């Protein structure tokens, strides 16, 4: 069994990590670390885990040796913790934004503070098995991209060479992306029914998407009514027709266990829709073309393929287990 510890285990991503890892036949959850709730039962904070574990949250001081340490701690905090806690584990998988960008100056531009551990920035392998499977198999430091970044990267990667360098990404996200400590702006009275454009320019995931696709990505992001889910609609310019696009997507994702090509001509769900993906580790990608206009679409569950599920997929690759282990849930319909 792979012995795992989760830091930041009381948050939404931490809860999803625990849900997936407790159901995973190859992992043993040794510690669920929380600074807010040490000593309290895990299922008192994550009620969906009632009957699945008797584990109580640990204090960060109790962290001890494990095979894989998963960091679901906040941006700006993780970079101060990681240099110290990494000694407890052979492999660290970070879900925060702190080690996604290899350049400290770019980090400061997008996150607003200087990086606290710039010497580690170049050591992380991006947690995208579809692009870095071979590197992840030997990686000791893994950084999972943001949820909208993962969707955009998987939507756009097959288009490299087929579209011009500039791409505009319109991202929509559910409220769980704001985390479990969301502020006044996320009160139900404020959020319900809203379509809040919270990042009209310079979303912080632009840099990750540009880095991993080779395109010049510009992103806007809007919070919508859903609790879970991310959808990106990406606009680009190129000469490829739909048949060429489908060939490119098949070439990239034909053998991928968690990327499905959804560009259908019939049915109620012809293009990727996050509603169908709640709880699943799938990312659905689709496309359309008209003249020189190309639109790429992707959807995923922000807490699963956009976070905890991607981390577990990376864990499987790193530890030599079947990549789909513990991640087989297909989602619900209707929901």
């Amino acid at each position, binding site marked *: 069994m792979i012995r795992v510890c989760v830091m930041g285990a009381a948050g939404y991503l931490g809860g999803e990590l625990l849900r997936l890892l407790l159901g995973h036949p190859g992992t043993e959850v040794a510690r669920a670390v929380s600074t807010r709730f040490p000593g309290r039962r895990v299922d008192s904070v994550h009620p969906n885990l009632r009957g699945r574990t008797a584990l109580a949250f640990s204090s960060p001081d109790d962290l001890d040796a494990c095979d894989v340490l998963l960091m679901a701690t906040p941006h700006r905090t993780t970079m101060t913790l990681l240099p110290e806690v990494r000694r407890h584990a052979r492999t660290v998988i970070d879900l925060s934004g702190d080690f996604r960008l290899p350049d400290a100056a770019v980090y400061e531009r997008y996150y607003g503070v200087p990086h606290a551990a710039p010497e580690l920035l170049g050591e992380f392998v991006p947690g995208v098995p579809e692009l870095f499977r071979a590197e992840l198999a030997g990686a000791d430091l893994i950084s999972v991209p943001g949820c909208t970044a993962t969707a955009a990267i998987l939507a756009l990667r097959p288009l490299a060479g087929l579209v011009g360098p500039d791409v505009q990404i319109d991202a929509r996200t559910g409220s769980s992306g704001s985390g479990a400590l969301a502020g006044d702006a996320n009160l139900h009275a404020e959020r319900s029914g809203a379509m809040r454009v919270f990042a009209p320019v310079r979303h912080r995931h632009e840099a990750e998407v540009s880095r991993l696709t080779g395109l010049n990505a510009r992103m806007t992001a809007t919070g919508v009514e859903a609790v879970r889910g991310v959808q990106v609609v990406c606009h680009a310019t190129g000469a490829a027709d739909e*048949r060429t696009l*489908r*060939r490119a997507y098949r070439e990239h994702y034909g053998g991928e266990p968690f990327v499905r*090509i959804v*560009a*259908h*001509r*019939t*049915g109620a769900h*012809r293009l990727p829709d996050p509603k169908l993906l709640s709880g699943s580790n799938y990312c659905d990608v689709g496309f359309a073309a008209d003249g020189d206009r190309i639109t790429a679409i992707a959807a995923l569950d922000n807490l699963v393929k956009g976070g905890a599920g991607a981390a577990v997929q990376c864990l499987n690759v790193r530890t030599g287990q079947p990549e789909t282990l513990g991640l087989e849930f297909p989602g619900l319909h209707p929901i």
Partner: protein
Amino acid sequence: MTLTCPECEGPVELAEPVRLSEIAQCADCSSELEVVGLDPVALALAPEIEEDWGE
């Protein structure tokens, strides 16, 4: 027998014997396809009613 979808080039399985006007659906792009010839067997997009989500 396996044919190629005229819409997306995906594989389309047809049970034999194939009949003229038989309808099949492509698993890759969900297009409804109609058998429009038997010698050789040929597929074409079946007529469809466009869906409109209030646009």
